[in-house]
């Protein structure tokens, strides 16, 4: 990881060890390499192989409206406050292949906010960002997302938002007209905008406490006075040094508010 950082500037040094070990072993099997030292040697010589390794080191596992209660809480408790701002900036940190971005864009459109909202969707994995930009998801998965959407308080028919063709569903590109997809690392980069809402779900669990603190520091710095932070349903700030710097807003849904 040290070598990858020096050569490619991707910093995995403060990721949790247990899941990183599983991913490296999985990568060895998939790439047909006998040992970690063989992998290290090849990766440092071959940037294309590093690109493939990156797909295994990051976890592109997501779904639309994952944990519907989170999106319902955003709709009911956060959106009314976002409405009080003349314009809104939302940061989806670690957006992976875009499922969360499209979910938020749909929600914001239904709540009449999308047209004055700028969404920043960031990730370290360029292949995931490219998929996110395209907004094309497997039709099988989309059928499952429909139930999530309804439980999240969806106001329309989910099929209004995509066109199905062959085995894929292409989401309405106008949803992402004001989304900026950008390469950003919570491990090495800094804050780039003042935001009213940061949504970063199931990303911090892959970080050790030091890196969690760094990421939470970025979110704190980015958020405006009393801005909102949304985490994954089993994530919390309780074991970080930021536990006093956010108030729990909707505790079971893991929505926090920047403390004064």
């Amino acid at each position, binding site marked *: 990881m040290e070598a990858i950082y020096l050569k490619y500037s991707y910093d995995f040094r403060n990721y*949790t*060890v*247990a*899941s990183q*070990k*599983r*991913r490296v072993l999985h990568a060895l099997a998939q790439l047909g390499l006998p040992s970690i030292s063989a992998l290290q040697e090849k990766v440092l010589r071959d940037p294309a192989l590093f690109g493939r390794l990156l797909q295994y080191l990051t*976890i592109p*596992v997501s779904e639309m409206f994952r944990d519907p209660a989170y999106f319902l809480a955003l709709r009911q408790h956060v959106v009314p406050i976002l409405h009080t701002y003349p314009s809104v900036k939302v940061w989806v940190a670690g957006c992976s292949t875009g499922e969360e971005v499209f979910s938020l864009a749909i929600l914001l459109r239904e709540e009449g906010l999308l047209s004055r909202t700028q969404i920043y969707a960031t990730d370290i994995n360029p292949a995931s960002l490219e998929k996110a930009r395209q907004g094309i998801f497997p039709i099988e998965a989309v059928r499952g997302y429909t139930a999530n959407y309804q439980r999240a308080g969806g106001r329309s028919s989910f099929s209004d938002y995509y066109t199905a063709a062959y085995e894929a569903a292409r989401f309405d590109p106008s949803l992402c007209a004001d989304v900026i997809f950008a390469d950003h690392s919570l491990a090495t980069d800094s804050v780039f905008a003042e935001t009213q809402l940061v949504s970063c779900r*199931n990303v*911090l*669990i*892959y970080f*050790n*406490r030091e890196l*969690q603190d760094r990421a939470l520091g970025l979110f704190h710095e980015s958020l405006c006075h009393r801005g909102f932070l949304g985490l994954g349903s*089993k*994530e*919390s700030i*309780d*074991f*970080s040094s930021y536990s006093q710097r956010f108030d729990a807003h909707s505790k079971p849904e893991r929505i926090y508010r920047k403390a004064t």
Partner: protein
Amino acid sequence: MKLTAPQTPGRRVEAVVLGASAGGIEALFTLLNGLPALWSLPVVIVLHVPENHESHLAEIFSDRLHLPVHEAADKMPLASGHVYFAPPGYHLSIERDRRFSLSCEPPVHFSRPSIDVLMASAADAYGPALAGMLLTGANEDGAEGLRRIQQAGGITAVQDPNEAQISVMPQAAIALHSPDHVLPLRELRALLLQLESTHAH
């Protein structure tokens, strides 16, 4: 079949990991019910439960056991004498600093949380100071995890398949490695108490 824990001098168990699937709630009650209130080992449990449902395991067991029972949270430190359940929909690992971490990696043996994932990470974190037990269940999750515990020098125990409500899971573990103990629940419980007596209070 051995009935006593290995009494290697200086060997001390510092944590117990348990895996169970179908029939597991009942088996866990039998195994854990009435453990002494001064119980000092952390016990970490993966019981297969459906994803996308809130789990009430921590509350259910909290009512029945005289021990503090929690749903394990990301980066929570393992405390002595506490019992932890993996949350549904997430893999649970133990890091080397003896804190939990969660992950959304794909299911292993169709299960998330996976027993293999917990046990392999715990074997890395605790080495020989770990005991793993695998109970009733209908799939093969946990077999590889127990083998990893044994390879790291820890103690492995499997519920006697003849007694298990569903024997597939214990059988799979026995097929993959030679567990230190293959015992009915009543005796697994005696083993648990014995392991604790080697653990300094």
